[in-house]
């Protein structure tokens, strides 16, 4: 992309592109003009700032969730017995 195109991108980036960049940010290093576009867009766009916050919350919760077990879920009695029987049969 040439310089003029990059400048145009920075100035004209919309919510659709900005939200993709926000998601991409955790997947790949953004190019300089992409970072500039995102910063510029977030400065002027409330909904996209909200979306950025949502992504932060989601990431934070996912980290906490994967560390904590969920005690409410149990193997059913039937499957418990079935798995035991299968193991026994193969012992």
């Amino acid at each position, binding site marked *: 992309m040439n310089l003029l195109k990059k400048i145009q991108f920075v100035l004209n980036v919309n919510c659709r592109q900005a939200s993709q960049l926000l998601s991409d940010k955790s997947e790949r290093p953004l190019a300089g003009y992409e970072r500039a576009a995102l910063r510029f867009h977030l400065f002027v766009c409330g909904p996209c700032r*909200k979306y950025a916050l*949502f992504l932060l919350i989601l990431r934070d919760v996912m980290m906490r969730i994967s560390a904590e077990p969920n005690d409410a879920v149990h193997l059913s009695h039937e499957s418990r017995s079935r798995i*035991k029987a299968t193991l026994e049969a193969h012992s």
Partner: protein
Amino acid sequence: MPEQPATNLTTSDPATWVDAHGDILFRYAVKRVRDRETAEELVQETLLAALQNRDSFSGKSAEQTWFISILRNKIVDHIRKRARERDRFEPTPDETYFDAKFAKKGKWSDAPVGWSGSNLSPDELREFRAALDLCADKLPPALAHVFSLRELDQMDSDSICKVLSITPTNLWTRLHRMRITLRECLEVHWLGDAKTTPAAAKEGC
């Protein structure tokens, strides 16, 4: 020389496995495949594989860690198979998906509102988690797979692309779709009434 603590080089009695580890393995699987029946099968396959490979248990890690590493491989295999089956029947959705989410000139059709402070209290976290479970269950398979691999297991992009046989660009598009889909669903099921405050509704780009 000080005496080494006895290392347990053999596994415990397989007859005790289900009671000792069954629930933990089941929770791990259910969270990732989002289907109880499949999760049960995967737990059974895991314990069976462990039984058949008992000799390879080195005792270096805890027994449960060993089970989980086997289970993790089984889950990834399961997702890989599902992804192949699905791709045969439905072509990969293209950019048109986003047309419904964004209006003219790329503005949000249904703008994100109501999200504030990222420090959730334990109560809020519990509620968020319940809503997230519900919303993750609603994801179409292609998005559920990337949710499980990326958000739950924090697997890196390259590995996910290999598992799903897709390009990085395709993966990034899917992750973006998955995230905006979750956002919409969580705004309804978690934020609920908080969303429709007049102040929030007015804000625009």
